[in-house]
Structure formats: C-alpha cells, structure tokens
C-alpha cells in the first residue's frame, strides 16, 4: 500500500516537473508569474487529441505535433499579449495571463465542448512488481521527466545560448550591454517552454483525462512546485515538483483524496510565510 503511494507520488511529480521548470524559466526572463500555463497545457492536450483521435496518427506523432503547436500558441501569446504590455508591471501581466488562460480554455470548448475524453490507445495491463502496479504510460512519464530535467540542465549549463538565458534572467541590462540580443533569448525561452507545456498536456491526457480544465487542475501544483523550489530557479522547480508530487499523494493517507487539490495551496501559503524565496531561491536584493 505505502509503496504504491510512493510510485503514484513519483508519477505525479514527473507530471508537474517539466511545466514547473518551464514556469521558472519564463519567470526568470519575463519577471511575472504566468497563469496562462493552464491554458497552454490544455491546448497541448487537445492538439494531441486532434492529431491522435481525429486524424488517427500514433500518439508519439501527436505528442510532437502538440509540442510544436503549443510552442506556436505560446509564441503568439507573447507577441500579441505580453510583449505589447511589457513595462506595465508584473501585476498587469499576471491579470492578463489569467484572462489568456480563460480565453484558451474556451477556444478549446468551442471545438470540443466540455466532455471528458481520452487518447485512442490500446488498453494495456499495468506492470506488477509485488503489490505495486504501474502502467506503461506512467513509466514513460517518469522517463520523460528525467530526460527533460537532464536536457534542460545540459542546455543551461553547457550551451552558449543556455548560459545567455541565465545571464538574461540574472541581469537583462548587462546582458544587452555585453551584446546579447535579449529579445531573441526570451523568444527562444518561450518556444522551449511552450514545447514543455504542450508535452505536459499530452502526458496529463495519458495519465489523467483530456478536458478543457485539465491544465487548470495542474496549475496550482505547478505553481506550488516552482515557488517551493524558488521561482526563477529551474533546479528548485525540479526539487519542488518532487516534494509537491509526493506530498499530494501522501495526504491521501490521512485525508480523503478530495483534499489533494488543496495541498498545493497549503504549501504555497506556508512558504510565503516562512521562506518566500523558496528552497533554492535567493532573496531579492533590494537597493
């Protein structure tokens, strides 16, 4: 029983780790909390649904299409919504992002209604290890999350562009003075994160269900993970996702599972009181 909870917690963590990393990266270069992530994830899930179910393509092809499609939506949302309003302050951008997530969600509803759907996949028996059950999809989710964390790490630490992303997040004015085209770096960050949100939509569709609110259900745990780790720190986001993922499942031991959704809120509330910079974050330096 308890080992099963651990496995469920890991799957949960693996689902929220990539978007938490993406949220942190975007916060780093844009300096506002982007609540449109729920909309992006939903859009990703339905892109994949359209390609997999409506067009009959295999799920891996649908996942690639969803990543590209979502990256384009994310890029458009930056070009049409956030960029024109840059300089209006983080609160304005935050409110805009909430509006954007509602708009994206309702565009999806326009085409697909509010029904709960699933991908067209052959049913498979879960693997059994003693008492523990785990499905093929859950294993894939964990492997992909680890791969994404590793790839993100390699890009940020060892590529010129990745270092420029960190430099831009650290000190945008200095980055420009050193000749870095920060507009281009921010665009690349959006596109990379857009692909992660699209993939998250697909994985959520595999593990949970596909419906217009699927992104919204994940938004709070993703924010909790990013804030727990120290928003703006992608490594913190990985750690935060692991802790939030496990915490959500462990509460099932002591509380009815309907309270699971509240865990993220509780974590955010405690952190903002005790350690607002997060576990791996640094306090804001005020001059």
């Amino acid at each position, binding site marked *: 029983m308890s080992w099963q909870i651990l496995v469920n917690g890991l799957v949960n963590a693996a689902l929220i780790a990539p978007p938490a990393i993406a949220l942190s990266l975007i916060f780093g270069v844009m300096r506002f909390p982007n609540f449109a992530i729920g909309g992006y994830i939903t859009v990703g899930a339905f892109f994949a649904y359209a390609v997999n179910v409506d067009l009959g393509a295999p799920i891996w092809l649908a996942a690639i299409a969803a990543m590209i499609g979502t990256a384009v939506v994310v890029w458009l949302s930056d070009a049409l919504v956030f960029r024109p309003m840059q300089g209006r302050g983080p609160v304005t951008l935050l409110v805009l992002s909430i509006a954007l997530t509602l708009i994206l969600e309702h565009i999806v509803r326009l085409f697909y209604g509010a029904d709960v759907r699933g991908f067209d996949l052959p049913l498979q028996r879960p693997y059994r290890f003693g008492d523990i059950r785990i499905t093929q999809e859950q294993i894939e989710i964990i492997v992909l999350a680890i791969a994404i964390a590793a790839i993100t790490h390699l890009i940020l630490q060892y590529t010129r562009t990745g*270092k420029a992303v*960190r*430099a831009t997040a650290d000190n945008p*004015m*200095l980055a420009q*003075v*050193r*000749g*870095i085209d920060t507009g281009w770096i921010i665009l690349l960050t959006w596109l990379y994160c857009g692909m992660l949100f699209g993939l998250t939509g697909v994985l959520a569709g595999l593990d949970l269900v596909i419906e217009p609110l699927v992104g919204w259900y994940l938004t709070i745990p993703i924010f909790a993970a990013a804030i727990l780790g120290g928003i703006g720190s992608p490594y913190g986001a990985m750690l935060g996702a692991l802790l939030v993922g496990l915490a959500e499942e462990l509460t099932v031991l002591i509380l009815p599972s309907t309270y699971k959704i509240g865990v993220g809120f509780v974590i955010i509330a405690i952190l903002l009181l005790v350690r607002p910079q997060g576990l791996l974050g640094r306090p804001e330096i005020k*001059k």
Partner: protein
Amino acid sequence: MMADAILRASGVYAGYGRGDIIHGVSVEARPGEIVTVIGPNGAGKSTLIKTIAGLLSPRLGTVAIGDEEIGGLPAPAVARRGIAFVPQEANVFRQLTVAENLEMGAWTDQDRKDERLDKVHALFPVLAERRHVRAGNLSGGQRQMVAFGMAMMVEPRVLLLDEPSAGLSPTMVEQMFEIVKGVNQTGVAVLMVEQNAIQALKISRRGYVMAAGKVALEDAADNLLQNKEISELYLGSRV
C-alpha cells in the same frame, strides 16, 4: 583634430522620458587616449554614458563611432560595434560563475576567446583562481575585476566606464586606475565618468567638466588639475 575622434557625441539631448537630463552635450574620445568626465552628482554624467552605450536614445544630437552613426541603436548593436560599457552597479551576472561571466563578455566576438581569457587572467590572476565561484559571492573589488574582465573579452575600440572606482577601498581605487592605464596602453581609448576626479584626471589626457546637464569646461587634464576654480568646486572634497 576633430576628424581624429574614434567616438564622438555631438549636441546630445537625452533623458528618461520626463524631459531631458543632458542638454546639447558634446564629447569625444580620440584613439589611444583616456578622457574623463567629472562633475557633481546629478550633472548628467551617467545619462551621457548610458546614451553612448545605447541604453538611452538621444532625443536630439548624434553619437558616432568612427564614421558610423550609432545614436539610437539598441545596446547589443552598440556593443557589436566595439564599444564596451562597464556599468557602475550590477555590472556582473551574480548567479553565473566567474568563468561564465567572462564567456558572456566574449559574446559578440568568439574568435581568439582563449587568448583573451589568458590576457584577462594575466591582468587579474585572482579571477583564474576563482573561476568556478559565483560572481555574487566575490568581494566588491573582485566583482569589479570581473566586470572589467568581461569588457576586455572583446577587443573594444572604446571602453566606457561609469564610476569605475565607486565602492572600492582606497588601495583598490589606486589599483583600478592602474588597470585602466594598463588597458589604455594596449591601444584602447577610454571614456570614463568619475567622482574621484583627481585620480581620474591624473591618468587622463583630457577632461570635461559637466554641470547641470551641460559641458561647462573642456581642457587638457593637467590644466584642469591646476585650475583653481575647478579644484575648489569639484576636486576639493576628494583631496
């Protein structure tokens, strides 16, 4: 004489949107010289240097490097044309290591990066020792070396320095000016803005005195140092 200038700002008006801070300022730097702009706080020295670096757009007037007009170009484009600006504050990437900072310094010019890194390490041996330390964890003096080293990772045509001695201990200030001199001797023109007027003028060929957003006086550095009126107005407190 005028045609010799490698960097020239002419009749520049600029500010932060709510009216101009500098009004018709003209300064120039010629190849191989150190030029210092002095003046009291609020005279517009920083505004001038930020306008040259491309962080502010001149509302009127021109900025040119060689024969090319750069006024109004964004900062990355100005950097690509060989102007290396070292801001006064927040002039390192705190979360990046020393080595990564220097690598970002070479962003616009990847050729001979290793050779230049050796030069920077020769200039500041401590940066080689501490290359894996995050710049935010360094002392103020070492951070200033990183900031300087980053600018030296390209072969700049002009080095722009905003108060290079600010926040340094007296011994470090002396070292800093020695470094500026050393860099200049490699053939780089230096335009700096300084509160620490006497020491800055001592290593400079020429100087400008700014007051209330205008150039009040322009002369050879030696003459400015001997000018009674100037020393009473601007140099006195720092002797």
